[in-house]
């Protein structure tokens, strides 16, 4: 886990310049972007689709999507790492939903990876100590709370789908989700509206 994070950390300082070069269609910038975030993106996608071959295809799709959409990104205020990982997650969730015959919510995915939503984030957001804290915070959740967060984030399930999967009333699942998000917010010190 540490190597890609370290690469991401070292990369964070030069992101605005990197984004500008991506916007100028400099292929070397794409190579640098891959060197910084490629392993993180692959690790995330692999966690979701659990197939290395499919994961590599989706990583390629992710980087091409970022390459083609970098023009709409704010080089000064944008956080390209979090944006790229959001694109990576969406590609993987979309694949998962499509492969399992579940409804694909194209509008939601489109919104979730819109570059304008990834700005004003701390550049340290992907640093290794943060990742460790996230892991620790997830471990501290109750098994049910952790499961609903993982089902939502790594499988893209709605609360209704989670209730069906877990055989629990929708109200119970909603309570677990809200409590889990509150606990994560408290533990991580993120100013997230609960």
């Amino acid at each position: 886990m540490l190597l890609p994070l370290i690469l991401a950390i070292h990369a964070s300082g030069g992101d605005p310049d990197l984004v500008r070069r991506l916007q100028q269609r400099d292929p070397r910038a794409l190579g640098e972007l891959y060197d910084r975030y490629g392993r993180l993106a692959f690790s995330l996608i692999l966690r979701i689709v659990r197939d290395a071959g499919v994961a590599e295809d989706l990583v390629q799709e992710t980087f091409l999507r970022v390459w083609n959409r970098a023009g709409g990104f704010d080089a000064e205020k944008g956080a390209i790492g979090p944006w790229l990982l959001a694109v990576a997650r969406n590609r993987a969730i979309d694949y998962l939903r499509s492969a399992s015959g579940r409804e694909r919510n194209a509008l939601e995915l489109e919104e979730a990876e819109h570059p304008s939503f990834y700005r004003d984030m701390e550049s340290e957001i992907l640093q290794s100590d943060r990742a460790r804290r996230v892991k620790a915070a997830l471990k501290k959740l109750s098994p049910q709370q952790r499961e609903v967060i993982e089902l939502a984030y790594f499988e893209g399930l709605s609360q209704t789908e989670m209730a069906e999967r877990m055989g629990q009333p929708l109200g119970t699942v909603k309570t677990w989700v809200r409590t889990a998000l509150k606990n994560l917010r408290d533990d991580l010190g993120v100013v997230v509206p609960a």
Partner: protein
Amino acid sequence: MTHEELQDCYALYALGLAGDPERAEIREHLARGCEVCMQNLYRARELTAMLAAAPDAAAPSPRLRRRIMASVGAEDRRFGWAPFLAGALALSLFAAFYFSTRENQFANETLLLRDQLRRQAIELTRLNEAFAILGGPGTIEAGFGQGPKGKVFVNPQRGILLIASNLPPAPDGKIYEAWVIPKGGKPIPAGLFQSDSSGAATHVHPGPVAADANIIAVTLEPAQGSDQPTSTPLLAATLQ
């Protein structure tokens, strides 16, 4: 809906879990450029961004970078250089190892040569001293021969030269010591020496010799030598 009423929904929205009517309400706010909703969503997405770093690390194949670069029509130069860099590194390591080994060899050989040179210089000095004794005016000669056989040459100013054969090497912890024994006086130490494996020995003791020297003798002594003989002489040459 007011922002207060929507407060609970931003994190759910960022995770894709918000349901209607809240989801529709947030979308409507965003569509009209609502800054409060935008800010709340930025913050909410920080949490989802952090979750992205939570999975265990995995490495894609090295081919993936090439594929991605090729898909935008660029050549992946990084891997083109890799074999050359690896080759250069291997060559450098080999050269460093080779030259450090050679340097060690040279250093050892130099030490050996210096040692040989030092020994030869000592031997040359000894020979010069021996010739000076042999060729010096007033040198007298005396023989000995019961067991060890040989001769001593004594020059009053230049010293003593002793040449012996049939003198087996002194055992471990022992050494031969030469003595000048004056008439009616105590033996005076005249140097330590060893014989070689064939039983031959050449001993030079430079310096003035006591005028009343009468006998040149050799005894077996402890390795550090003695002030006075501690054993019976193995050989003794009486000076005429």
